């Protein structure tokens, strides 16, 4: 095969049922079309027939892919995208930072794909070309933090794992008499990187994620449940082969330039995403509070969700992903008068956590008050509120749960209790009142264990709402499920005109993703601009590079790809096409796996009714509703116009055969498209 740079040209296919590892060597043409990451993953979902509606996402035939791109490795950060068919029966392409992506490239792999199901708990030990399926019974049941620290020591390069050779005679007699060698050999280096699931993934909670470095996660759409369904606890990788680059000098100079630019970025380097808190609540009016009943507190004195307050209270240090100078993650140690939370190690929380398992669970108000009232507490009270939020972040991370979907799920139940639809008798005796971290702790334990009501809630927000709606014979309960396309809404509301636009969540190719892009275009109705924004973001998830650092990359992105791969003619247009291909494939995937006859009615319109029904009650955008309160304009005018601009049909949003041909993906997708056109 052609001499490849940037990529290694090899993807490992591990079959856990047969206990075999085979190597896939895609043609260079495939890399040029899809780059890697999410678009490449989408391609394989089609190539391998994962679009089959009868294929059980949690069955052995599902394909779980760990994919990186041509600049992952020595690039200025190391994200990895996990692509699979989600337990929710939707498209999953979820990215994660840390060091794992780089290490996988250094081990010589563009991807690791897992099929089948192991007969007992296992983990994959990837040491360069060698991939072993190893017993994981000693870490099964453990949280991600402990499991990772144990597994890290078990995968060493050959050079680092020699048996003992030292004899007493190698030391001088005085030394040997004082402290003879133990002759235990070499094994002290810890250079492996780990992605693991916790008990949530093991028990196949639908919204479980895959976690690296204790708090970084391929968070959304439930890749952890798929991993758990395969009895796969973790993938541990150690690579010594390095990253092969067409023009190393240029590549490293570009990386260095990006890093220098990042060093001047005081926004990210100050508090990471925690810096957005106050702005989101008090300027944008788009912060999730009590299941989105409010999006800003009436009293802007609530400040436990802000970067400075979190830093003053708890930030201990800052950590970077490989090669990045933004160090946006801050590990913390929780200090609280409540022994449940005191001394627990957690992280920040980041932007999504502070919304979804902070404001959204009613942690930030004094007892007996609601967000519409003045704040009467002290700084000390706010520190305790922050502790609750950080503790809830920790229990989601350590059990490998997505706190976005999890926060919506818990907040739904709390609102149903608030409104009297259900009470603690429906919740195995747990009294889910706003702000009660002990109740949340008990409920999360039940969800993770799939015990009692936890077994129902383990299927996510929408299914929880459906369960209670049927149980109580009250379909209006579904109005309180804050999900779009059956997946929980992240911490950006669409009622305020200052944050996301409703069209963004309706059209994004991964259910209710907040990282889809194209915001400005959607707000102005410039569909071409919106699509270009979406395509760039999809291509970022294929490269794979971080959206936080995107501003620092943007000017060098194409040059980096060229320097890595040697594709001297690669252009922005090619990058757009990568995103367009992923969008076309993922759209067909969603329509086909659910066998939608009328996608608009059955799928696209599944958004939170609250968007249009409940005007914002407080804050600078008080009274606002989504899309100016015109859902029909959104779905009957804007959406078809957007589809048309993408070259999809205006009635169902199916990519036309002509479009597929133009994108060069008719070979894998045309047969599926024909069934729905």
């Amino acid at each position, binding site marked *: 095969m052609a001499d490849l740079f940037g990529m290694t040209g090899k993807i490992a296919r591990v079959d856990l049922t047969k206990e075999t590892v085979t190597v896939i060597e895609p043609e260079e043409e495939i890399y040029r079309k899809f780059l890697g990451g999410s678009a490449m993953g989408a391609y394989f979902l089609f190539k391998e027939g994962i679009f089959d509606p009868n294929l059980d996402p949690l069955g052995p035939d599902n394909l779980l892919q760990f994919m990186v791109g041509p600049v992952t490795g020595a690039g200025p950060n190391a994200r990895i995208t996990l692509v699979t068919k989600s337990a929710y029966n939707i498209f999953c392409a979820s990215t994660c930072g840390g060091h794992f992506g780089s290490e996988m490239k250094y081990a010589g792999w563009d991807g690791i794909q897992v099929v089948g199901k192991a007969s007992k708990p296992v983990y994959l030990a990837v040491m360069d070309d060698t991939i072993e399926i190893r017993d994981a019974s000693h870490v099964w049941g453990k949280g991600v933090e402990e499991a990772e620290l144990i597994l890290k020591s078990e995968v060493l390069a050959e*050079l680092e794992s020699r048996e003992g050779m030292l004899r007493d005679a190698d030391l001088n007699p005085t*030394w040997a008499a004082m402290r003879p060698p133990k002759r235990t050999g070499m094994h002290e280096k810890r250079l492996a990187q780990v992605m693991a699931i916790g008990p949530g993934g093991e028990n196949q909670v639908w919204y479980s994620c895959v976690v690296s*470095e204790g708090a970084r996660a391929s968070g959304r759409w439930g890749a952890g449940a798929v991993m758990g369904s395969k009895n796969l606890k973790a993938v541990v990788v150690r690579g010594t082969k*390095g990253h092969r680059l067409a023009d190393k000098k240029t590549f490293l100079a570009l990386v260095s330039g990006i890093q220098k630019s990042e060093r001047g970025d005081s926004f990210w380097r100050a508090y990471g995403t925690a810096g957005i808190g106050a702005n989101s609540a008090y300027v944008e009016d788009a912060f999730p509070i009590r299941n989105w009943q409010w999006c800003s507190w009436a009293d802007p004195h609530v400040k436990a969700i802000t970067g400075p307050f979190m830093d003053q209270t708890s930030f201990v240090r800052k950590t970077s992903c490989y*090669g990045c*100078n933004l160090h946006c993650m801050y590990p913390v140690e929780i200090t609280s008068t409540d022994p449940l939370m005191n001394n627990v190690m957690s992280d920040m929380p980041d932007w999504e956590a502070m919304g979804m398992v902070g404001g959204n669970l009613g942690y930030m108000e004094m007892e007996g008050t609601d967000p519409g009232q003045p704040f009467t507490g002290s700084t000390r009270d706010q520190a305790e509120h922050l502790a609750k939020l950080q503790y809830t972040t920790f229990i989601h991370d350590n059990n490998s749960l997505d706190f976005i979907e999890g926060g919506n799920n818990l907040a739904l139940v709390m609102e149903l209790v608030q409104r009297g639809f259900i009470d603690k008798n429906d919740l195995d005796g747990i009294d889910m009142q706003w702000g009660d971290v002990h109740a949340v702790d008990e409920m999360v334990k039940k969800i993770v264990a799939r015990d009692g009501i936890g077994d129902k809630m383990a299927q996510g927000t929408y299914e929880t709402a459906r369960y209670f709606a049927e149980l109580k014979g009250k379909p209006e309960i579904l109005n309180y499920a804050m999900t779009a396309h059956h997946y929980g809404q992240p911490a950006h509301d669409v009622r305020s005109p200052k944050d996301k636009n409703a069209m963004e969540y309706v059209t994004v190719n991964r259910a209710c993703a907040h990282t889809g892009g194209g915001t400005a275009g959607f707000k102005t109705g410039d569909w071409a601009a919106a699509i270009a924004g979406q395509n760039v973001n999809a291509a970022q998830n294929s490269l794979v590079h971080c959206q936080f650092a995107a501003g620092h990359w943007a000017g060098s992105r194409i040059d980096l790809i060229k320097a890595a791969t040697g594709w001297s003619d690669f252009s922005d247009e090619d990058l757009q096409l990568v995103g367009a291909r992923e969008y076309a494939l993922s759209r067909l995937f969603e329509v086909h796996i659910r066998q939608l006859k009328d996608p608009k009615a059955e799928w696209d319109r599944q958004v939170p009714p609250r968007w249009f029904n409940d005007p914002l009650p407080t804050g600078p955008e008080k009274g606002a509703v989504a899309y100016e309160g015109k859902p029909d304009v959104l779905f009957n005018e804007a959406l078809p116009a957007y589809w048309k601009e993408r070259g999809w049909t205006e009635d169902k949003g199916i990519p036309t055969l002509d479009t597929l041909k133009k994108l060069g993906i008719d070979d894998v997708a045309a047969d599926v498209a024909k069934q729905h056109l």
Partner: protein
Amino acid sequence: MAEIKRRDEAPKPEKEPKKTETSASGVSRREFLVGSGAGVAGLVIGGVIGNQVIGKPAAPAVEAPAEAPAAGEESPYKAGYNLVFDPVQCTGCMECAVACSEKYATLLHPEETANIVSLEFARIRPMRFQYVDVVNFCSYCQLYEWAEGSSEFPCAAVCPEAAIATIPEGEGEAGYYGMGYKWVDREKCLGIDKCWRCAEICEDQFASGMSFDPIDRKAQVCSRCGGDPECVKACPEPGALTWIPAARNGRYFANRPSDYAELLFRKIYAHVREL
């Protein structure tokens, strides 16, 4: 306490006829050694004493730096310094390792690594233990004569080929090795397939400062870039990685990585975590 004096003026190749001016500090190396080492037992200076005690022939026959700065002028190459990292400031971004690896891969394996970035040539490696980062590199441990029968570096003491040498001022290659820091004589080193005593004694009793390159499979150890470490220059976080006058035996900086991580969990998080 004995005063610790720095040696950061120009290196003066010993073979050269001595110039008439004294250095800026007015302290010759011998005076410096006596002043710092003799007064307080156990207080010694990293590489410089090692060089004196080991007394092995300086290994690689490399020309002295072509243009040594004039005497009295500030030299970038410092003797008697040590490398220290601050685990609170370090973010684990790996830029030190990339800088180190690139520098020595290009020096030693230019053809093989013309198109490859690999961290395996780095003498410094950050290791992430989730919430703490341990930056792993040779600490310049020294044995104590009165207790351990030698004042050598432990790795050098167990090397059967005397391949781990201390390169004195005026020898070595400016910016790579010299100025009283270690260097592995790659001709003498037997390589990992025959011998790993240096690495094993390090991991057995001190830390994990030795590694092996993946091409020749010979030992690698931090040479402090001959007194001007590339990693320190590459580090983006002020204070995370510093190059400071050594004030004590390097062995008290040294811990095996997982032990170090355990200590950092205690220090940073008041958290006892067994690793």
